[in-house]
């Protein structure tokens, strides 16, 4: 009983923290994009426009909730909930500080990757159930893209697993403590794996240059075309939460997670996460978009073979490399 209560409390705390961070991230992105485009971004709502996402949330709450007559009743309502749940669920295992993770799972990484793989389902459900052709095309594209990019993502994640010999995220981070980050040594394995992981992550979270499922210039708003108000807000939130958590994950896997001098661990994790997050948005606001067939050919022609080679290399390194 006590234990369940504690877990519940922790879950509430973590989910709300992630949500708060997500609102901040949305503001961060809008400001960042504004600066890149030589404009200001939000300035009028709250200091520096900080409250802009909050105002958006209050606005979206009050909007009429429309379900198109021809839409699938149950699935249409379910998709945004599922989407948000999947995106937030992954936050459970990210190690925040030495010895602190919301949930200490032995197979934490597996859990994250599994949840990450499921996130495509709500997108497809949304695309299918909206009964809108743009949404349907978006859903189809999302399926093709996510399933393909799942492979390099897994392969890249395998590299730290092989190198550290553990699937527990906290353990992986602990082994990288005191500057022994995987992206630093062995860099010829860690850096390429990190790059592949980032690319696949961009694709998984549908970010430019891989955002073809929602390609606004082609598909209006992709799978979310028919969603209004809070349901749309959930998608929007899930998208950002997903990116944010994926950044945290990448930081944990390759950049030593909470490891860093002086300040406590959580600060370092946040810093690394936001640097990665900023990188993703830097890419997003400066690149154009691929076409779906080009996207898949990049995945299967380049990323997958490279991933396989890296995993083999990691195995060889563990077997015959110098022992630390």
């Amino acid at each position, binding site marked *: 009983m006590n234990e369940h209560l504690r877990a519940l409390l922790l879950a509430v705390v973590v989910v709300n923290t992630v949500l708060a961070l997500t609102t901040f991230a949305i503001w961060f992105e809008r400001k960042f994009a504004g600066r890149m485009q030589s404009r200001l971004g939000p300035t009028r709502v709250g200091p520096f426009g900080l409250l802009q996402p909050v105002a958006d949330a209050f606005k979206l709450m009050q909007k009429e909730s429309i379900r198109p007559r021809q839409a699938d009743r149950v699935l249409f309502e379910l998709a945004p909930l599922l989407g948000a749940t999947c995106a937030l669920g992954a936050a459970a295992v990210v190690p925040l500080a030495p010895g602190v993770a919301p949930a200490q799972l032995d197979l934490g990484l597996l859990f994250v990757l599994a949840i990450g793989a499921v996130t495509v389902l709500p997108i497809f459900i949304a695309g299918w159930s909206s009964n809108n052709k743009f949404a349907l095309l978006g859903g189809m594209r999302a399926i093709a893209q996510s399933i393909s990019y799942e492979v390099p993502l897994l392969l890249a994640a395998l590299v730290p697993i092989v190198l550290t010999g553990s699937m527990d995220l906290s353990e992986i981070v602990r082994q990288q403590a005191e500057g022994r980050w995987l992206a630093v040594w062995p860099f010829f394995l860690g850096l390429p794996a990190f790059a592949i992981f980032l690319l696949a992550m961009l694709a998984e979270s549908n970010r430019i240059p891989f955002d073809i499922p929602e390609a606004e210039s082609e598909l209006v708003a992709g799978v979310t075309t028919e969603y209004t108000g809070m349901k749309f807000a959930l998608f929007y939130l899930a998208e950002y939460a997903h990116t944010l958590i994926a950044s945290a994950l990448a930081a944990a896997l390759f950049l030593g997670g909470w490891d860093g001098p002086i300040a406590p661990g959580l600060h370092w994790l946040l810093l690394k996460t936001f640097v990665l997050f900023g990188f993703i948005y830097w890419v997003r606001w400066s690149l*154009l978009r691929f076409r779906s067939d080009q996207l898949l050919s990049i995945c299967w022609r380049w990323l997958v073979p490279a991933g396989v080679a890296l995993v083999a290399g990691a195995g060889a390194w563990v077997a015959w490399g110098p022992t630390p």
Partner: protein
Amino acid sequence: MLQVTTITRRVDPHLALDLYDPEAELLLLHFGPQHPSTHGVFRMDLYLDGEIVVKVVPYVGYLHRAVEKLCEKLTYAQITPVVDKNDYVAPMTNEQAINMAFEALLGIEVPRRARWIRTIFAELQRIASHLLWLGTFALDLGGALGGGSTLFLHCFRERELILDLFEDVTGARFHYNTHTVGGNRHDIPAGWSAKVKAALDVIESRLPDYLSMTLANRIFLDRTRGVGVLDGELALELGVTGPILRASGVDHDLRRDAPFHAYDELEVRVATETDGDCLARAKVRLREIEESIRLVRSLVDGVPEGVLNAARPIKQPAQFKIPAGQAYVGIETPRGELGTYVIADGSANAHRLKIRPPSLHALSALPHVLPGATVSDAVVILGSLDPIMGEVDR
């Protein structure tokens, strides 16, 4: 993978295309008339096999504002501000085309000073128009929530510089109403040429940025190379003009081949490409920006002295009559040959006034180049044709 041959020869685009099989299960996607990437209110019905466009049926006319009827109703002197609104991305050249047709009918020789100023306006307008095209094309490629919008906003920023220049002369950001029969209404203010040069310097210094996001960018190249190939012969038959025609390997530019304004005193270097794809069109337009900058630089200091208007200002529009006769004048606008066909009957109103919009002809190439492309490409191809619906529908 489905093997697709791009259709560039005459297959009736409405009824039967090689790939179109009415029995097959095709997805009919109504694209427009209100869609972020249709460049206004244009609708095309795409028949999709997966993501491949098998057949396309375009519909125009959602912005048919009856301009030609209005021009028959208004007196000649009142027409200029109306035609401004046709090609709302390049209003200057609209005004010029219509007034040149009237001048031809009246046999008026426009003073040299006015012709120089018109040339400067036309070239500045070309820069502004191509910048807007580049921005919207980037939006089509990169989406409103991504790199596309960054390029778009940068292009808009530079375009504002040119609008400011026009505002200095005419007092309006666009829809200038500055050309009249026989010359210009507004003279250029003192110190304007220095401002022009300053603005051009800024634009020129930022062109490399655009190139790095477009012609030097791998994604841009991948998305545009070999997409939407329009062969030169077909382009001619369709009446496609301007950068699209030049990108298809036809070396034709009215500025050089049938000089108007002050172009007979200038050497215009015509940019051509041979591939006929979206990349070639982008290259041609980007080179034209550079060429226009060069032309304006060479013009702006040497504006000849003299009167600005050969005719007296029109006091009573109803008394301004044009002798009966017919005339056609075509000029090179940013989008190609903008023609005006006037039939005057001796009164103060035209008997018939037909505007030949370059965009309509460019858009009519769509059913020929789209089949075989994907939905993503469809947006890009449409963007590369640079249609302005105000001009297409009039």
